């Protein structure tokens, strides 16, 4: 992290946030409780934990797709709602969510189109992004002509369209096969270093979390809370490339996250996490 980044507002600041869903007839589900988390500008943070521990819920609170029942959530110093209105973040989900009647380029242009960006500027920006995610030959194709991995690249390009300084990603590679997945992780590392955006990344995979992240937030269910935050220390100058996957620092990170998951007193569920 640079000095300027340290001085800047945090990308995300969550203070003792909680979320209670009211389900049928007065019954309630405590999805999250006492969440404290700060994400620095440009930082890559993963959320990991067993199903139902509230990872998606936390991401949705930050995105203002749901509102917290208690606590405070600030995005670049603004309320989550204001940050959404100001288009401070880009978002990608597990399913790419492309509009099937729009070409690759038109899908990427959608947010720009909605915000009144002119045609020429839109096309130029889409061109850049298509280049960035390596789909130059597929600009005029439609989603049903793309593989799952390509669709997810389009979705990532779309999330970057407004040059957000924050990316929210909910298991974006969850539906991909292992090989595509590793290639996509590699690409994401490159894209993030090129755009300098902070990322909150939800995943089920320990290696994925360690490979990508500066810090891994380990969560546990019933009620959803943070049990540990593991800093991934790869040592100075270590590049996040394929070689990293066989590196001792990487294994140390994986072990640390695994222990944090297993070690949580109420969640001996870590074994079948994936």
């Amino acid at each position, binding site marked *: 992290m640079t000095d300027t980044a340290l001085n800047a507002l945090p990308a995300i600041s969550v203070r003792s946030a909680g979320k209670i869903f009211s389900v049928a007839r007065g019954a309630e589900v405590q999805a999250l409780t006492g969440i404290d988390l700060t994400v620095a500008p440009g930082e890559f943070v993963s959320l990991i934990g067993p199903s139902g521990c509230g990872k998606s819920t936390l991401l949705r609170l930050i995105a203002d797709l749901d509102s917290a029942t208690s606590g405070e959530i600030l995005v670049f110093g603004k309320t989550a709602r204001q940050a959404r209105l100001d288009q401070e973040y880009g*978002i990608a*989900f597990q399913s790419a*969510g492309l509009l*099937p009647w729009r070409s690759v380029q038109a899908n990427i242009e959608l947010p720009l189109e*909605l915000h009144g960006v002119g045609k020429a500027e839109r096309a130029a920006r889409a061109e850049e992004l298509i280049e960035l995610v390596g789909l130059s030959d597929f600009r005029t194709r439609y989603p049903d002509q793309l593989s799952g991995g390509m*669709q997810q690249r389009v979705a990532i390009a779309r999330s970057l369209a407004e040059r957000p300084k924050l990316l929210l990603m909910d298991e974006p590679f969850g*539906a991909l096969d292992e090989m595509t997945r590793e290639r996509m992780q590699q690409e994401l590392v490159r894209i993030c270093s090129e755009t300098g955006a902070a990322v909150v990344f939800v995943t089920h995979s320990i290696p994925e979390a360690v490979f990508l992240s500066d810090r891994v937030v380990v969560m546990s269910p019933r009620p959803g809370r943070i049990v540990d935050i593991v800093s991934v220390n790869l040592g100075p100058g270590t590049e996040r490339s394929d070689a990293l996957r066989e590196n001792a620092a990487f294994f140390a990170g994986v072990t640390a996250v695994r222990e944090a998951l297993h070690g949580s007193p109420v969640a001996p569920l870590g074994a079948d996490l994936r």
Partner: protein
Amino acid sequence: MTMTRGADRTKSRASAVLWGVLGIVVLAVLWEGYKAVGPVAGVELFGTSILPKTDDRSMPHLVDMLTRAIEPVNTSAGSPPVWVAVIGAALNSLGVAAVGWAVGSVVGFLIALLMQRLHVAERAVLPWLILSQTVPLIALAPVIVAWGGKIQIGAFSWDRWMSVAVIASYLAFFPVAVGALRGLQSPDAIHVELMRTYNAGWFRTLLKLRLPASVPYLLPALRLGAASAIVGTVVAEVSTGYKGGIGRMIIEFAQSGTSDPAKAYAPIAGAVVLGLVSAAIVALIGLSLKRFNRQEAAS
């Protein structure tokens, strides 16, 4: 990829035509076959006729129907051939039905839009829509004719064909309303939420997401609406006493049935063709919206 898909589509279209032709042939064979082997007096069970008589008056030969169709309508001088008169009447009905279909589709779509926008409206309006379709046309026609007769605004005065068109639209709006509502509600939660993250309001979400997503539902609904409009027009012509359309012609020709039985089948065939033509016209409209018919990719 697109090429194989195009070839598949051509193939399936060709087989659809083949099945259609086969259906007509089967019908013709059944008709003539039964006429050849069935008892002349028909079959009666406990006093009710369960199979028709096979004499030439009840079941004319197909050949007679065809030859009758190219002969003049009646003996008066200058009387056009039956088929020409049928086409004229069919076009007349098509015009009235088209007006009814257009009005019905617009109304149906607006109702769907209202129901999509206000969930309360959906719960309040939908039962009434369904109820509206249970009112028999025969009961409706005199009421509409009577009300229409009272309308006179400046140079505009209500015409009988407008009553027919209103009844046609009454039948056409229902499938369009139901289909459009399903289409407008069809986008996945993820798409709706994505629009929310873009801070797109209701209207922009409608324009960029719900409308395009509704096309695959809307096209069959419009086709169904067109068929309903044709049926509505044919029936309403009879019950409102509107002259010049195919519905009226069916009744008129059938009334000369005893002396000229083969004549009545030409306008019936005309009505069937009319239904097909209307479906084809809507299909043509659909062609221009083809790109919205793409399905979501399975990843």
